[in-house]
């Protein structure tokens, strides 16, 4: 490799993904994680259907620090997947493909995700 100016193959170990690329793989990752979270929610609903006692056991886990981290992460993941999903729908309509539009949309979807998360959190308090 020494002294060579030959272009490197954009392999993940030597290539820093652009923002749009990071968001793209995050969309996939959140999709998989959201599915796993749905299965946890199914378990919770099952506990709820079993009756008050089993629900309270589940609820004490949800109310713990770890439980809250998992729950809030799931909702943040959902809002990310939501925002990036809408971008995919915009792309499907055939627009938003120019480089400057892509970067603008990428920033916009991150802002929307943060706004949604904060709004939902404030909403849950009162």
């Amino acid at each position, binding site marked *: 490799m020494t002294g060579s100016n030959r272009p490197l193959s954009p392999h993940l170990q030597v290539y820093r993904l652009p923002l749009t690329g990071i968001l793209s793989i995050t969309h*996939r990752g959140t*999709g*998989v994680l*959201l*599915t796993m979270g*749905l*299965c946890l*929610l*199914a378990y919770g*609903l*099952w506990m*709820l*259907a079993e009756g*008050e006692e089993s*629900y*309270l056991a589940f*609820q004490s886990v*949800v*109310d713990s620090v770890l*439980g*809250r981290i998992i*729950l*809030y992460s*799931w*909702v943040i993941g*959902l*809002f990310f*997947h*939501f925002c990036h*999903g*809408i971008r*995919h*729908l915009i792309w*499907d309509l055939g627009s938003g493909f120019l480089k400057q539009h892509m970067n603008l949309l990428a920033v916009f979807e991150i802002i929307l995700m943060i706004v*949604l998360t904060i*709004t*939902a*959190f404030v*909403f*849950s308090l009162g």
Partner: protein
Amino acid sequence: MEIKTPLAKVRSFGSVTSCVVHWWYQRITAIALIPLSLWFGFALMSLPGAGYGEVVEWIQRPWNTLALVVFIMLSFYHAILGLQVVLEDYVHTEWMQTKSILATKLVLISIALLMLFAVLKVAFTG
């Protein structure tokens, strides 16, 4: 002599049509999930502090029951379509790919049915 027609040979191997249908259903479920996932994300934020009676009462409200049922069906369908693409991209051994897709479908459909049963049980019997 070859008895089978070319059409009979390619049948059940998956056709271009099934790919289009897959793509299309992923978009349809995505669009339907826009209002539902927002609603669900907001509602879920309140779960850590919610007691048994509160959650049961919330699920028993007719619109919530209906929205939950539709959300579960659409999100699991959307998840199956998405995970199928992920498995198609990353599992390269053919038998493992087809079997893992099949297993994913079986597991997720079972969990979705359990979840629906739990929601309806809570909604109708408390």
